[in-house]
């Protein structure tokens, strides 16, 4: 035990600091903090570990060879002072004070043997924590010095040209949705039975659309024979023929024949004015 036993008695409201076992009667200038600045100072620390590191660095102590007594005294001095001034101390500072006091008391207890089986240096845990904290404290400051967005550089962007228009992805529709839609209409419309739909009929409806479309393109006139695609064979001819009959019946087209066995014309029905 290199620390003089007398140290315990020097825990006064205004104790002296002990640096490496030597009493320092005058507070080092760089460590002196006016009491009214204490609270501000405490705010500048990220917690008791940070504050302890500050005290250790100021004293140029080696963490690994941490003189717990001295640093504990320093720490307690500030804590006492701040409590005396009714500063609100974060709980962590008091926990640390308790921990330091405990370490100190254990160090002060006389050792029975040179190496108590498994008894670790009570400072070990504190030293480990101080070192680990210091690593991340420094890592944080290195992180802060990395060039970063919005401070060291800014994203360079260009506006879109005036003719830009967004690409709109149109909704997908499944064939089954169409069938479902029609079924739901059928369920609603009682008289839907009148609107018969089946395969053969559908090809007729399609041909009706095609003939009307063709008529539009040909200024409303078609030769009857132009309505037939002979390459489609007999079936196709029948479908076209049905389509023309249906169109005529629904008064969408008119059929005209100027003379017997002459050309039959298909024309869009005249507007009834």
């Amino acid at each position, binding site marked *: 035990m290199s620390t003089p036993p007398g140290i315990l008695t020097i825990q006064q409201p205004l104790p002296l600091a002990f640096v490496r076992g030597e009493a320092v009667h005058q507070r080092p200038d760089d460590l002196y903090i006016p009491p009214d600045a204490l609270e501000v100072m405490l705010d500048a620390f990220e917690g008791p570990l940070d504050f302890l590191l500050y005290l250790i660095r100021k004293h140029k102590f080696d963490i690994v060879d941490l003189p717990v007594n001295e640093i504990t005294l320093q720490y307690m001095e500030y804590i006492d002072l701040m409590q005396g001034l009714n500063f609100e101390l974060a709980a962590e500072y008091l926990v640390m004070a308790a921990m330091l006091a405990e370490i100190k008391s254990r160090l002060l207890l006389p050792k029975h043997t040179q190496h108590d089986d498994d008894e670790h240096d009570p400072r070990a845990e504190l030293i480990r924590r101080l070192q680990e904290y210091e690593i991340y404290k420094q890592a944080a400051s290195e992180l802060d010095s990395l060039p970063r967005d919005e401070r060291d550089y800014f*994203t360079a*962007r*260009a506006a879109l040209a005036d003719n*830009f228009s967004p690409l709109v992805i149109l909704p997908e529709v499944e064939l089954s949705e169409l069938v479902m839609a029609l079924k739901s209409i*059928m369920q609603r419309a009682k008289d839907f039975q009148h609107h018969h739909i089946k395969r053969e009929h559908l090809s007729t409806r*399609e041909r009706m659309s095609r003939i009307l479309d063709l008529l539009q393109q040909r200024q409303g006139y078609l030769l009857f024979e132009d309505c037939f695609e002979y390459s489609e064979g007999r079936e196709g001819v029948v479908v076209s023929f049905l389509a023309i009959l249906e169109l005529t019946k629904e008064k969408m087209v008119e059929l005209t024949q100027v003379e017997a066995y002459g050309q039959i014309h298909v024309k869009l029905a005249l*507007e009834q004015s």
Partner: protein
Amino acid sequence: MAQKINDIQLLQLIEAAIFASEQALSVAELQASVLQRFTVSKSRIDATIRQLQHDYSARGIMLLETASGFRFQTRPELSDDLAQLWPERSARYSRAVLETLALIAYKQPLTRGEIEEVRGVTVSSQIMRTLLDRGWVKVVGHKEVPGRPGLYATTAVFLDYFGLKSLSDLPPLPEFTELTADLLPTVEMTGELH
């Protein structure tokens, strides 16, 4: 107080400022912000901007002067490809749209009035617009009744989209096949010819 800045630094600073700014920057704004600690005449800034415009004359972006100042913007020819960066998914079609399309598909050609008659509700212009814009239906003629309403039919685009070779490939509706053929005049007609 005011410092000197060489031409290269001036060009880099103005270039970076215009790129970094969300809004277009005027010469006055450049002078009041990034150039405030330098002595740079307006004519020197103008010359620098001309130099930049020249530098970017054959690139994917260009330096443009707008009412509020200078800004970089993408070359207009690239707009169609750039649109692929932000595709917008439009909302799914409403039941009204699907029902209207189904009726046109199975009952074409027919008028809007006829669609309304079957659906029992008004078919809005918006619905017809949606289907016309999509290229799935078109007006193939006019019905010779008062008002000459357009007759709607499906298109080749419609068939392609649904992977159909013709309308007769549309799924049959089982309920209908149960109906007896002699119920309906059209079917009778079909029957005669078969």
